[in-house]
């Protein structure tokens, strides 16, 4: 049995009825890891024996009438930034090679409570401080659609795992786009919930005020199931996620800054997706953010300072254990002046107001999740509209504002470039509106699936 294209939402009822066992699903994921991980490098740690034991436990419980809900028996993975008892949490850094977690992160224990099976820990950009998953102490991860290209990052291993069926869903983190970027680059769904909706306890931080924990999944419904489980609400789910009606939906397409550095092939796919939403009854208006031009500067001063503060001790004691690029980025943070950090915090509050204003009178904002196709591995810059853009800057451009403001955001696959590289459409909703955001994304997903 292949898990290619199978979703949790479709498999769970069959597991509940005993038509498929968790052991069989887990074996299939482990076989896929064995087959593909040597070339794609999605996993740092594979916990095959523990996973199979957990799967057999799940099967016994289900057969005994103790079904826990839609994640019961489902093989999942964790970004290796998240603690799982007994396993190393490497953060893809040799700095933490000897680490062993002595307890579960809050999200890990919630998945266990839901009956999930944890197959392993996925590769990432070292300490989540990058967008390509190239700078990893365990080597670069590769995009399953085109292995010469990055899977995006920093949750690149998680996106690969979900896309290929190494796990049915994964838990990632997103500090500037690290769930949505790899989701877009690999053609899956990535949800960054609102800030603090999901506990970051037991998760190695990059910037505690910008870090968000959330799911990468094969469908919006699966992202919703994971989201509810990560919040500790999995047992409450009893029916499928209801799509938001597209007729009458009001969407604001963000222009200006957010349209300036978008690859023409990506733009054509996004234009087509927005047009399909319009044809299905959604009303599309244009909006801009007043302080969009300052977003990157605000983000950079905050994330650099926060990361440098966390890493100062190990930077002094074991600098050679970091990858060269991440070490330099962290060292750069040690030179940010306090007065500029304060300016950035004030700018961040204004951005939050700008986004709230852009959301006035509409249900969600629409923009690219990633303005370029997945970049070639090793590229420092990519050509965009006649200029060369730094890969990191152009990849973060459309996602990082909503880490600064905390609004929930999701990337949904909406097509592919002529070269076959996936494109993700990003929807952003008001604070507290994650459930509505998922319903809107569900409607968009169904529309894009119909369009092929």
């Amino acid at each position, binding site marked *: 049995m292949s898990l290619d294209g199978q979703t949790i939402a479709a498999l769970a009822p069959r597991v509940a009825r005993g038509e498929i066992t968790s052991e069989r699903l887990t074996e299939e994921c482990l076989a896929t890891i064995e087959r593909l991980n040597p070339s794609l490098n999605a996993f740092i740690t594979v916990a095959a024996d523990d996973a199979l034991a957990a799967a057999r436990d799940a099967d016994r419980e289900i057969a005994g009438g103790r079904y826990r809900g839609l994640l019961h028996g489902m093989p999942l993975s964790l970004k290796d930034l998240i603690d799982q008892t007994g396993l190393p949490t490497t953060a893809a850094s040799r700095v933490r090679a000897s680490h062993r977690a002595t307890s579960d992160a809050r999200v890990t224990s919630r998945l266990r409570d839901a009956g999930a099976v944890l197959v392993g820990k996925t590769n990432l950009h070292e300490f989540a401080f990058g967008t390509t998953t190239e700078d990893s102490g365990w080597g670069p991860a590769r995009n399953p659609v085109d292995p010469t290209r990055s899977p995006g990052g920093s949750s690149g291993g998680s996106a690969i795992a979900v896309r290929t069926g190494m796990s049915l869903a994964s838990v990632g983190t997103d500090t500037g786009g690290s769930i949505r970027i790899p989701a877009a680059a690999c053609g899956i769904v990535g949800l960054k919930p*609102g800030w603090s909706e999901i506990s970051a306890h037991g998760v190695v931080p990059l910037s505690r005020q910008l870090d968000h924990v959330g799911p990468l999944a094969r469908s919006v419904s699966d992202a919703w199931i994971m989201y509810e489980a990560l919040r500790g609400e999995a047992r409450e789910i009893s029916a499928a996620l209801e799509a938001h009606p597209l007729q009458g939906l009001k969407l604001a397409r963000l222009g200006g800054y957010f349209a300036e550095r978008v690859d023409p092939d990506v733009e054509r796919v996004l234009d087509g997706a927005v047009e399909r939403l319009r044809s299905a009854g959604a009303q599309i208006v244009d909006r801009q953010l007043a*302080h969009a031009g300052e977003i990157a500067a605000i983000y*950079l001063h905050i994330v650099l300072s926060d990361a440098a503060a966390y890493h100062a001790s190990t930077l002094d004691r074991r600098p050679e254990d970091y990858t060269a690029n991440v070490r330099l980025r962290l060292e*750069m943070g040690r*030179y940010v002046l306090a007065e500029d950090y304060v300016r950035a915090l004030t700018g961040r509050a*204004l951005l*939050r107001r700008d986004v*709230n204003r852009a959301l006035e009178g509409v249900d969600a904002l629409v923009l690219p999740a990633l303005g370029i196709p997945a970049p070639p591995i090793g590229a420092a810059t990519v050509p965009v509209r006649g200029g060369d853009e730094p890969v990191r800057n152009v990849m973060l451009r459309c996602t990082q504002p909503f880490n600064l403001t*905390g609004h929930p955001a999701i990337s949904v696959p909406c097509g592919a470039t002529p070269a076959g590289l996936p494109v993700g459409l990003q929807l952003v909703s008001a604070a507290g509106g994650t459930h509505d955001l998922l319903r809107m994304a569900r409607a968009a997903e169904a529309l894009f699936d119909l369009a092929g």
Partner: protein
Amino acid sequence: VTVDEWLAWAQADAARRGLTALGPILEGLAKATVTLRAGDWNEAADEPVRDDDPETSA
């Protein structure tokens, strides 16, 4: 401290610490700092920008 003064000091300090590769990267941060300091909020006293202000909170 102007951005130019800060950049000269930071690059000299990085070189002293043996981090010569940091020099060009700090120039990128300096550009971002120029943008940040030019933000219209820095000298405005009438902007409601506190996180607990209902006008600004998400």
